[in-house]
């Protein structure tokens, strides 16, 4: 669609620009969530996290996301790169392309969670409140990333002649002059809706770790759905599912376990909270 934007003599990659925009808007959303609110709402984990901590954990997560996404991509690309290595046909330009282009979101997500976990361990910060604070920023930034995919023409949909079909006239990746399903825009819209749901859900009373569980569950379902309309078939697949669908299945099962554990421990948590609320404040001698 518009893989590169030319501003004067500077050429900007649309995908990178949209990812950057998404990253900054994600950081902005964290600032909104961590700023001190006048409304007392003790159920929100994000209230107990300072902005600087959340921002630094977010940056660790972004670094982990980049490394994880690249690592997963390299693992996928290995079968295609190895023959080139054997033929000694791997030029420095191709190596630069492989290192700077191509990312796998699920690898990025795992890397991002690992990054936030490393931050929490390194600086002795509680992991669960940090993760709960950051998680709505993930679908928000991801939604912008999918718009970037649409502009670059990657992650394109299956051939489709119906209404709302799109035709790429300028792309290095997508098949040109063919009507395709706009799967990138569909996923982007669903991700915006998911981010809105998480923020609204967080405003109401909820249980610890439930935000993370809901994200895993709903994104897993979204990805299972959108994978059905993808047309870039060179991604990995096993049996009747693509690699991403298999990872989605794992995410959905993990989410169900998290949410069910929350439900079973909800009674004990409520009892403890009531007990604390009834106790008089401890006298400091």
């Amino acid at each position: 669609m518009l893989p590169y934007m030319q501003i004067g003599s500077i050429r900007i990659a649309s995908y990178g620009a949209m990812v950057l925009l998404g990253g900054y808007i994600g950081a902005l959303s964290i600032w909104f969530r961590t700023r001190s609110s006048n409304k007392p709402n003790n159920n929100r984990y994000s209230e107990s996290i300072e902005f600087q901590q959340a921002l630094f954990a977010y940056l660790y997560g972004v670094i982990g996301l980049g490394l994880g996404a690249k690592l997963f991509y390299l693992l996928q690309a290995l079968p295609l790169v190895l023959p080139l290595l054997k033929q000694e046909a791997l030029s420095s330009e191709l190596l630069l392309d492989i290192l700077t282009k191509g990312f796998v979101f699920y690898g990025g997500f795992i890397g991002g969670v690992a990054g936030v976990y490393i931050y929490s361990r390194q600086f002795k910060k509680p992991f669960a409140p940090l993760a709960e604070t950051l998680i709505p920023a993930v679908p928000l930034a991801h939604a912008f990333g999918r718009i970037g995919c649409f502009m670059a023409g990657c992650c394109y949909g299956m051939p489709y002649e119906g209404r709302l079909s799109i035709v790429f006239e300028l792309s290095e990746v997508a098949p040109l002059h063919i009507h395709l399903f706009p799967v990138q825009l569909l996923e982007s819209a669903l991700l915006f809706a998911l981010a809105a749901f998480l923020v609204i859900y967080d405003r109401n009373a909820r249980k610890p770790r439930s935000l993370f569980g809901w994200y895993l569950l709903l994104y897993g379902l979204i990805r299972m759905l959108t994978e059905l309309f993808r047309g870039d078939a060179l991604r990995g697949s096993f049996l009747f599912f693509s690699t991403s669908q298999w990872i989605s299945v794992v995410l959905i099962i993990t989410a169900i376990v998290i949410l069910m554990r929350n439900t079973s421990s909800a009674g004990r948590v409520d009892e403890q909270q009531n007990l604390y609320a009834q106790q008089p404040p401890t006298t400091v001698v």
Partner: protein
Amino acid sequence: MNENDSQQLSQGNIQSSDPEQQQPSQGYPPVGQQPPAGQQPPPGWQQPPAQGYQPYAGQQPNPGYPLQPPPPENKTRGSAIASMVLGIIALLSLLLGIYPLLGLLCSVVGLVLGINARENQRSGVATAGVVLNLIAISLCAIAIVACVTCTGCIITMAR
């Protein structure tokens, strides 16, 4: 009890005759004091709490509470300076178009060092390091990062 007695009572010289004001004379030291050195504490005596605040079970400690001794200042300052230098190198390599991948790597390492320094001690150098590396990473994103999810496409493009 006259005014003089009250003054001496407050200094601990005499005991009050008022039974309500008398401490239990069972050999227990006053609350909050250790027993004298060389003496075993009497039965029932408990170590007074070091702090008046004990968190409830499951309650997270205050994020600002110092859980570990602060790291040496020299190490923190070294990290901050290294972060700023790496940020400058990353920006220069990106702006001049020399080895952009090197710039990306420098900015990632510099950002981690800057965050480490800023978490341990707030200083202007550490803040400058974080900001410079953030700018460098942002430039990387818009300059060299592109999306090619189809793994075969890169190979096709290269041919």
